[in-house]
C-alpha cells in the first residue's frame, strides 16, 4: 500500500496552532507573575517561583515549537480497497488499521484557519470509535472521501454473504 505524506501547508497550520498555544502559555505566566508581585509576597519566594515556572515554561515552549515538525515527519496515511492505514506519533508510534467494510460515515471538517489555508480534516466513523486523518488539502480530502465511498460499496457487495 502506498503511504502518503501530508501537504506542506499542514505544517504551516500546525505552527499557527503551536504559536497560539505558546502565546497563551506566556500570557498565563505573566499573569501569575503580576499576581505574585501585586500580593506583596517576599522577593525570594517570587524569584524562586518565577525561576521554577520559567524553566518549565521554557521547556514546554521548546516542545510546543518542535513538535509540529516531528509530528509532520512521522505522519503518513494510505488506503487500498480493503483498509485505511494511519501512522502517527513521535514517541509512541501508532499504526491504526480500519477495514473499509467497518466505515459507518465519513466527515470532512474545516475551521477558519483551515479554510484560509484550503485544508480539511477527515473523520472516519465506525460502529465503534471515530478515527481522524489529521489534515489534508481540501482537494485530497474530497478525493479520499469519494474513493472510500466507492471502496465501501464494492467491499459491502463482496462481503454481502458474510457476517461483518
Amino acid at each position, binding site marked *: 500500500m502506498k503511504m502518503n505524506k501530508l501537504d506542506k501547508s499542514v505544517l504551516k497550520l500546525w505552527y499557527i496552532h503551536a504559536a497560539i498555544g505558546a502565546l497563551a502559555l506566556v500570557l498565563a505566566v505573566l499573569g501569575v507573575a503580576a499576581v505574585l508581585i501585586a500580593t506583596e509576597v517576599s522577593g525570594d519566594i517570587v524569584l524562586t517561583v518565577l525561576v521554577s515556572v520559567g524553566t518549565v515554561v521554557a521547556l514546554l515552549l521548546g516542545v510546543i515549537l518542535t513538535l509540529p515538525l516531528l509530528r509532520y515527519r512521522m505522519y503518513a496515511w494510505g488506503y487500498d480497497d480493503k483498509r485505511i492505514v494511519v501512522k502517527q506519533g513521535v514517541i*509512541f508510534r501508532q499504526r491504526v488499521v480500519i477495514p473499509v467494510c467497518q466505515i459507518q460515515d465519513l466527515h470532512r471538517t474545516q475551521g477558519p484557519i483551515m479554510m484560509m489555508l484550503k485544508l480539511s480534516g477527515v473523520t472516519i466513523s465506525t460502529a465503534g470509535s471515530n478515527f481522524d486523518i489529521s489534515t489534508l488539502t481540501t482537494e485530497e480530502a474530497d478525493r479520499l472521501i469519494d474513493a472510500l465511498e466507492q471502496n465501501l460499496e464494492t467491499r459491502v457487495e463482496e462481503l454481502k454473504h458474510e457476517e461483518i
Partner: protein
Amino acid sequence: MKRFDKGYIYSSLLTDLFYSFVAVFILFDDLFLDEESPFEDITAAVPVFVVCFLAIYLIFVAYRILYYRASGYELTDREIRCHRGVLFRKRSVLDYKKVHAINKKQNIIHSLFGIAVLTVDSGSANTAHQAEITVIEKSEVVDALMRELNALKETGERSGACEPKREEVLLSDKDSLYCFSSAKKWLYILINIVSAAFFTVLFSILAITVIGIGKAMLELDFLGTWGEYFLYAVMIMAGGVLLLSIFTCIGSITHAFIGYYGFTVTKRDRSIQISYGLLEKHTNTFSYDRIKAVKISQGLIQRILGFASIRLEVIGYTVESGDNDKAAGLGVLIPFCKYDEIGEILNRVLPDYIPSEKRTRAVSFFPFLSWFLLIFGILTVILMTGTLALLVASGVSATVISAVMFGMLGAALLVFSLKLVSALLSYHTEGIAVENRKLTVYSGGFVKTVTVFMAKHLVAVENVTTPLRKKHGIASVVMHLKTNASSNEVKVHIQKDTLSDELETMLTL
C-alpha cells in the same frame, strides 16, 4: 393509543410526597432553617410549612396528570409506537426487527401498585443514554408485552408472530451448576470485607510510619511517648478497620441478598434474559448476536482465593454507569463464582465465549515500568526540588526540611512499590489467544480481566510502539470494539509486534 396504567400516577404521587418535603426545605430554607427565622416556635411554622408543601405537591400532581394524559403506546403490524412528555414531547417509533433489548424494572413502590416499567431499545447511538420506548403498565401486562415483543422481533410483523418460545432456565438460584447460594453470598461478603480491611491496614501502617518519622525528626511532643503513640495508632487502626468492615458488610449484604435476590439467567430461543432484585426487580432481555464480549474479572483478593465474576458487554449498551434503564446493572452474568467453574458455566450459557488458553505472553518486563519510571522520576525530582527551594527561601529549619523531604521520598517509594507489584502482575497476565475468529485477551495488573469477543465485533486494530521497542520487535495492541459509547477498547501490552499484523489480516480478510 393505549394510555399508561393509572398506577403510574399513584406510585409517582407517593414518591412525590418525599420530593415535596425535601423541596420545601431547599426552596424555603430561609423561612424554616435559618437562625433568623420569623417563627418563634414550631407550632407557628407548621401551617406555613403545610401551605408551602401543598403548593409544591400540587405542581407535582398537575405534572403527573399531564404526563399520564400525554403518554401512550400501541403495537401496530410492524412497529411499536410510544409518545410521552409534558413540556418536551417525544414520539418514538421502533420497528420490531430493530428491537435490541427489552427490559423490565419494578421497584418496591411500583410493586405496591402492581405496575412495572418496560423499556424497549434499538441500541442506537442516538439513544445511548435513554430508552427508545418506555411503557408503564400493570406487571402482568408488561410480562405479556415482553413475551409478545420477543416473538415479534423474530418475525418482524404481528400477523406472522409465532407462539412465544419455551423458556429454558440456564442458571438460577435453584440450579445445580451455578447457584448464588447463601453460602456463596456470605463468602462474597467475606471477601469484600477482607479486601477493605487489607487496604485499610496497608494505608494505616503507611500513615503510622510517616507520622512516626515526623514525630522522631520534629520532636512532636503532643503525640506522647512512643508507647502511647503506638498504642493509640493501633487502636485507631483497629477502629478504622472495624468501622469500614461494618460498612462493607452492610453494603455487601444489601448487594448480595437484596440486589441479587432470585438471580436467574434464562434462555429464550436466540435471546438471553437476566432477572434479579428484591426491592427493585430487573428483567433484561437481549439477543445473543448483540453480545459483544464476555469479561471475567478478578480483584487481587479474589485472584489469590480463586474466585471471579463474569460480566457481559452488549452492543447498544454503554459501559458507563448511570441513572438510566439501559446502563444499570445489565452487565452482570455471574456475580461470583469459582474461577475453575467458568468454563462449565459458559458452556451452558454462551458456549461460543469460553475463554481460550493464552497463546502469547508479554515478551519483556521492563517496558511495563520504563515510562512510568521516567515520568514519575522527573515529576518527583521537580516536585522535591521546587519544595526544597521554597522551604529554603522561606527560612524553614533544617529539621523540618529533612522531615518534609523524607515524607515525600517515602510517598514516592510507596507509589513506586505499588507500580512495581502491578507491573509484575501485568507481566504475568498479559497475553492473547486467537482461535477461529474468537479472541481471548488477558490483561490487567491488580485486577485481572479476561475479555472474550468475536472478530466480527472488532472495528479497528492499533499498533502502539516506541522507536526502542520497535527495534526489539515489541508493541502493544489496542483493539477497538463496536459500541455506541465514544469508544470501547481492549488492550494487550508488550507483545511481539507480529501480533498486530496477524490481527490486521483477520480484520480485513
